[in-house]
């Protein structure tokens, strides 16, 4: 089969420092009336326009069931951007230009007529807006609609060779929001459905944590500084703690939470990704597959938990009434759309092991929960204690191990805790912290994760998205935990505003450690 010659690069891009704009395309958002579109996607697209990162040939098409005109859709999105954008107020001239590219197609995911309307609409946009037959389909919908939409796109020939027409360079990509399946079997099934319509290179599974600056900086911290890598392993690291704590409850999403729980909502994706980035070996390059290969190796090295071990290594909890930020809040079972006898976990703590050369014997304690004392996500590398101290025993109580903590949110930054001498005639030791904060060092207006991820999807850069085998490996590890939890007693309760059930402390205390209070 003859192959076309490689495409010549644009010579004016050579050495250009200014951020590159996305490629001309139509961004089709399924679920355009939803919260994600209003709170995250549309503000992110507006901010990309603000920073000149959107190409001239851009069109944004909202697809949803509601009866709307282009004008009413634009008005709704304007209100949402005004409310949720990190840049306020809206710049009128910029919005006027931006909204010209916003249009709306009404239709249900399961209705073939939706896709016929969409196909005609996109063809008009190619002519009117210069979108060049390029399509970015964004599925901001519940997982139950993933399959019907993929099938609808395939059946109506909105993707594949027919969609490209005569243009071999035209592309179609699809972006999926989490949760991607609810167990290994459903994730596989979904991946199989997607594979009927898309190649893996066209599929962008979002884990928005990967779009956060600090998460990306984790690779820079590890692999652009010689200082850390030699001590990043069992010889120097005592244990690792990863915390994803939220102070909010289910916030009106009781029905969704009843079907997921924190293990599926946070642990299977965000937390596993943070663990992978912490534990992975240096990739051979930053090419998407090189990074993802290394993450998959970590997931495969996670020591599987037999049913009997789950009870020993996993603690799950559910928040009871309590006080958060000085206000009384209800118990999980008192939230709307939550069963009074619900056994769904809102907190989980796990003791994991990465069985490879680097991390052999080093526990990774991970926890995630809702209605905890404060909102914080951090990775803490806790180093071994010094083998012998030169300082008098009476002063030893001040010595604690060095800790390198990477704060993902809020106050993104990195802190190193070490021991210093208190000024004075006596040798009194004390913890001090060397504290680097993103906001302080680089200014506060850093891009939102969705801006980076949307732009990457428009450019076809997949490094910050999860690959099929990665998602399946995450489920493979979590599935036995979920099965065991399903057959266990109800979760332990913990007061809202605390750091979780007391029993979670036992996971660490029996190893001689304790949870940080980040």
């Amino acid at each position, binding site marked *: 089969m003859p192959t076309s010659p490689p*495409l*010549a*690069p*644009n*010579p*004016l*891009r*050579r*050495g*250009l*420092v*200014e*951020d*590159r*704009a996305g*490629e*001309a395309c139509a961004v089709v958002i399924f679920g355009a009336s939803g919260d994600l579109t209003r709170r995250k996607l549309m503000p992110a697209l507006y901010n990309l326009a*603000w920073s*000149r990162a959107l*190409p*001239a*040939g851009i069109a944004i098409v909202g697809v949803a069931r509601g009866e709307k005109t282009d004008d009413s859709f634009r008005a709704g999105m304007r209100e949402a951007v005004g409310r949720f954008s990190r840049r306020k107020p809206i*710049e009128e*001239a*910029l919005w*006027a*230009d931006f909204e010209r590219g916003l249009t709306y197609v009404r239709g249900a995911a399961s209705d073939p007529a939706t896709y016929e309307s969409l196909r005609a609409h996109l063809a008009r946009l190619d002519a009117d*807006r*210069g979108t*060049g037959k390029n399509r970015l389909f964004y599925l901001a919908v519940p997982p139950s609609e993933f399959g019907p939409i993929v099938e609808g796109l395939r059946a109506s020939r909105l993707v594949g060779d027919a969609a490209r027409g005569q*243009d071999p*360079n035209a592309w179609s990509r699809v972006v999926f929001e989490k949760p991607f399946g609810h167990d290994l079997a459903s994730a596989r099934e979904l991946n199989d459905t997607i594979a009927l319509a898309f190649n893996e290179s066209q599929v962008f599974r979002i884990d928005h944590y990967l779009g956060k600056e600090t998460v990306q900086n984790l690779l820079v911290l590890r692999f652009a500084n010689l200082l850390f890598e030699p001590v990043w392993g069992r010889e120097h690291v005592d244990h690792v703690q990863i915390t994803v704590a939220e102070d909010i409850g289910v916030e009106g999403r009781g029905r969704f939470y009843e079907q997921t729980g924190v293990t599926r909502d946070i642990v299977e994706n965000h937390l596993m990704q943070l663990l992978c980035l912490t534990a992975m070996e240096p990739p051979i390059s930053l090419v998407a597959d090189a990074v993802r290969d290394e993450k998959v190796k970590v997931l495969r090295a996670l020591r599987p938990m037999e049913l009997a071990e789950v009870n020993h290594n996993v603690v799950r909890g559910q928040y009871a009434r309590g006080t958060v930020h000085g206000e009384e809040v209800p118990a999980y079972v008192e939230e709307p759309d939550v069963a009074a006898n619900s056994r769904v976990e809102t907190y989980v703590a796990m003791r994991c092991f990465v069985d490879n050369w680097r991390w052999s014997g080093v526990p990774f304690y991970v926890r995630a929960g809702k209605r905890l004392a404060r909102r914080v996500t951090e990775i803490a590398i806790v180093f071994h204690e010094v083998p012998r101290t030169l300082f008098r025993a009476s002063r030893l109580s001040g010595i604690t191990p060095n800790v390198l903590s990477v704060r993902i949110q*809020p*106050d993104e930054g990195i802190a190193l*805790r070490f021991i*210093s001498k208190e000024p004075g005639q006596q040798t009194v030791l*004390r*913890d*001090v*912290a*060397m*504290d*680097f*904060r993103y*906001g*302080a*060092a*680089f*200014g*506060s*207006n850093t891009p939102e994760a969705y801006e980076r991820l949307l732009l990457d999807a428009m450019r076809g850069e997949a490094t910050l998205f999860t690959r099929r085998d990665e998602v399946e490996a995450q489920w493979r590890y979590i599935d036995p935990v979920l099965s065991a939890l399903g057959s266990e007693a109800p979760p332990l309760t913990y007061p809202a505003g605390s750091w979780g059930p007391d029993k979670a402390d036992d996971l660490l205390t029996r190893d001689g450690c304790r949870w940080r209070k980040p």
Partner: protein
Amino acid sequence: MSEAPGQVLGRIEQELRRYLSSPPPPGELPTAHASTRNLVVIGGAPEITSRWVAVVDEVLKVIPARAIVVGLEDPEGPDSLEANSSAVSSPGEGGGPVVCSERVTMIARGAVCERLASCVEMLCASDVPTTLVWIGRVHTDDPTFEPLARDADRIILDAGHGSLASLAQVVHWAGSLPGSDRPGVADLAWTRLAPWQELCARIFDEPNLRELATKISRIAITQASPPGVALGSDGGLMLGWLATRLGLKATSLAGKLRLVRPNEGAVRLDLRAQPAARNPRGALCGLEIEARTGELALRATITCEKDDADKALWHRDIESGSKRESIEQRVRLRSSEAAPLLERTLRRPRYDQTLAESATWADELRDEEVTCG
């Protein structure tokens, strides 16, 4: 009686120490905050210096640094050094801790101007990179500039207020230093042009248009100035950038500058002047590119709006046989305000080979007749 320079510096050094020595609130862990850089700004005349103090204070809100802003006055007169220091604080993000920086302002006179590097070194925070911002023209053998530049990790000029020749000279000087000692060179005019360059590059982003980038037949540059004025630094750098990316050679025909493509085709160059009250003199206010290959013809313009120099209209027409496709986009250039411009320059990579190549190419036009009609 005025203080001796050593006394002045000693006093300022103590003041700087005091800013950093406040104890933590009761019960909180003492922290050592990371400084990101020293920012040394040499403003020349005192009025320029005072203007830059305001710019620096704006920048310090988003890039904490130790800033040292220096005015040079009457280098032939009696020696003296005046200095004062201030803490510049801004509220932390989302109610986070206050971000504190320090700014020292100095006026050097007489021989102190020549010895300025030793004064600055005494006040710089240690172990963080130093950026030297030099406003105005500069010669690399200037006894004030050279030692400061050698101590800096990066030098920022402004060809718009200095000259292209200064920029090219500093680029050449920095390039002659051994790699480990070589400071990066950046330029505010170059940063101002970055949005223009990106908009220009996107003309040819679509795969079917890339070949046209090598078939450009006409370039028109419009600068804000009365007719008959020489092409300014912005226009010169833009032309240098286009030429070095596209491999255009400068030649002349009947004494007039002409550009030739690597495949020998000629590129017509039109230099235009547009008196515009809202644009600073010499600023770029329009760019037009035409290209053709076979049946495919392209014409693209980037034009600043007359009533707002910060807004530009990007427009592209493509003709292929009887088919015609037009597309346009309004964008904000966000390059007219000094503080964001300096901030963006500080965030760019330390070394920029494209700037070096473009400045060198543009400087070689010095003897050509390049006036805007």
